[in-house]
């Protein structure tokens, strides 16, 4: 029988006590894993919501809306100044955008880089109901709205076609192939969009030229969405360049809007991460405490082992093996418990966010638990092994 075999035999027959000794490890690891898993789920949801904005930049007519209010009292918004952007600003906007991206990313290739999607919004009366019609550039819009799924029919192909949001289609009982009149111009419904959960569900998308012609708004767009297609693109710089060079428009980086909107979520997340740090410290302390207690409870055993020929090294080794077993078992249980906890608590914190287990946390859980268990055990065991045999019997 070797030393480690003896430890394994001993431990498997003292399951309850070993489990008790590992409670500290389990709780510590579980809390850390839970907090980190929830924090990650929160961050993922923040990122995916940012992603959903589609555009990195929005260009609107300058001073299109002013918030009117007295003190803290909002009296609504007031539209001032030009309400549309002339279409002929588009090439200039593209030049500025692509130019800055090329510069920032060191791209030499010719051709368009950013997705630049102009929109023309009008209110239209369709079958007696007022609906928002969005004139779009079908190609650019397709690149922008990566989350769009056509549930029935197909995407826009010819000028006299419409793509209908899910809610509009349901309310007005539209079907693929239906013909509708757009300010007197007849177009066909080519497809119906899957529900997106945004205001797109309430809109009808039609190629922009068609809308411009039908509503006498040739050469005008309401806003332009720009997607730079890289996360490190200098969107803020692009926005200020556009604002500086092109009069009559106002460009805003979505990041700036998103930052304020996401601020709350970010705050919660940062709080959770801070909590994880504290938990880590408290967890380690708890582990050290329980393990030290369990070493202390075994002073007599240490004495007996010495009396029958164990060296101090061997005693430390015995506790080291135990710590490894407790650490691995505790780390495993802690990971499982923490993940379960995250599944229960995560949605409560981040309003229904989908928590998913994080396999990358598994190994660190085991390593951390084992490391802490070893530190917490081996040092007190080393000290305890100094005790004189006679004293160890008297200590209880």
């Amino acid at each position, binding site marked *: *029988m*070797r*030393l480690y075999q*003896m430890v394994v*035999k*001993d431990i498997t*027959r*003292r399951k309850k006590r070993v489990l008790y000794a590992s409670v500290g490890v389990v709780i510590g690891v579980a809390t850390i894993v839970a907090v980190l898993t929830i924090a990650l789920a929160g961050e993922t949801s923040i990122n995916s919501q940012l992603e959903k904005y589609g555009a990195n930049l929005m260009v609107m007519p300058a001073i299109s809306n002013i918030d009117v209010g007295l003190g803290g009292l909002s009296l609504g918004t007031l539209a001032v100044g030009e309400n549309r952007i002339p279409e002929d600003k588009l090439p200039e906007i593209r030049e500025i955008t692509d130019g800055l991206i090329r510069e920032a990313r060191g791209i030499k290739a010719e051709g368009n880089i950013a997705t630049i999607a102009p929109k023309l919004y009008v209110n239209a009366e369709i079958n007696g109901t007022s609906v928002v019609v969005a004139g779009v550039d079908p190609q650019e819009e397709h690149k922008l709205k990566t989350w769009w799924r056509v549930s029935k029919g197909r995407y826009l192909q010819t000028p006299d076609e419409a793509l209908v949001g899910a809610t509009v289609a349901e309310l007005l009982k539209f079907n693929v192939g239906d013909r509708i009149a757009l300010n007197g111009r007849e177009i066909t419904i080519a497809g119906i969009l899957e529900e997106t959960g945004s205001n797109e569900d309430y809109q009808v998308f039609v190629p922009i030229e068609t809308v411009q012609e039908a509503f006498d708004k040739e050469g005008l767009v309401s806003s332009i969405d720009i997607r730079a297609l890289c996360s490190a693109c200098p969107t803020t710089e692009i926005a200020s360049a556009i604002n500086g060079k092109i009069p009559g428009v106002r460009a805003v980086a979505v990041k700036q809007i998103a930052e304020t909107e996401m601020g709350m979520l970010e705050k919660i997340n940062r709080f959770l991460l801070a909590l994880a740090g504290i938990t880590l410290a408290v967890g380690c302390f708890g582990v050290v405490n329980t393990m030290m207690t369990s070493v202390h409870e075994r002073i*007599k*055993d240490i004495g*007996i*082992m*010495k*009396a*029958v*020929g*164990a*060296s*101090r090294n*061997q005693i430390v080794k015995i506790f080291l093996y135990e710590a490894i077993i407790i650490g691995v078992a505790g780390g495993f249980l802690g990971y499982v418990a923490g993940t379960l906890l995250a599944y229960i608590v995560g949605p409560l914190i981040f309003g229904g966010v989908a928590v998913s287990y994080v396999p990358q946390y598994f190994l660190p859980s085991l390593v951390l638990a084992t490391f802490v268990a070893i530190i917490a055990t081996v040092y007190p065991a080393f000290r305890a092994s*100094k005790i*004189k*045999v*006679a004293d160890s*019997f008297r200590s209880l």
Partner: protein
Amino acid sequence: MLEIKNISKIYGKEIAKVVALNNVSLRVNEGDFIAIMGPSGSGKSTLLNIIGGLEYPSSGEVILDGKRIDNLDEKDFVDIRRRKIAYVFQQYHLFPSLTALENVMLPLTFCGTEKGEEKALETLKEVGLEGRAEHKPSQLSGGEQQRVAIARALVNSPSLLLADEPTGNMDQKMGREILGLFYRLNKDGRSIVMVTHNPEIAGHAKEIIVLQDGQIADKISQKGGRQ
């Protein structure tokens, strides 16, 4: 083989000072069977612990096979505990999670003997417990547990066996059995030093040492012991 010279042991300081042993000298020869008797608190356990290296004397010398061992450090004492001197306790001190066989194998494990099973079984047989090898201590009677503990002490073939009231926890019948075992072990050539309160048991020893207030009050030689 073992000699202690002018051993004193003082616990505590000043007002709490206890003189447990006061200038005790003693020889243990090969094949000896010494019983230490005396009232409670007279220093019997202290003396045995110092002989076995479980405790250090305050002054005096312990000489084993011609070499001083009272001033050895931990490390060197490990070897003596493994090869020369073994200890049997009143409370057995077996590990409850290990079987009788595993408890007996423990000293071999500490010595680095990987295949100790045969030797351990043999030793269990020697104490008449070969049928209980797979039993846990909790499944054994007090006498049986003490026999496991004795087997554990014997498994490394020590030349000196120390026992502190080995029969203190059992009734007379069981005590006699254990004593019989010690007696046989002694006949096979092992030296034994045993602390006991029981005059009947002491009567079997070759020599009785009576301690009183930390000093040897009497030495009684009984040639060959009583059978």
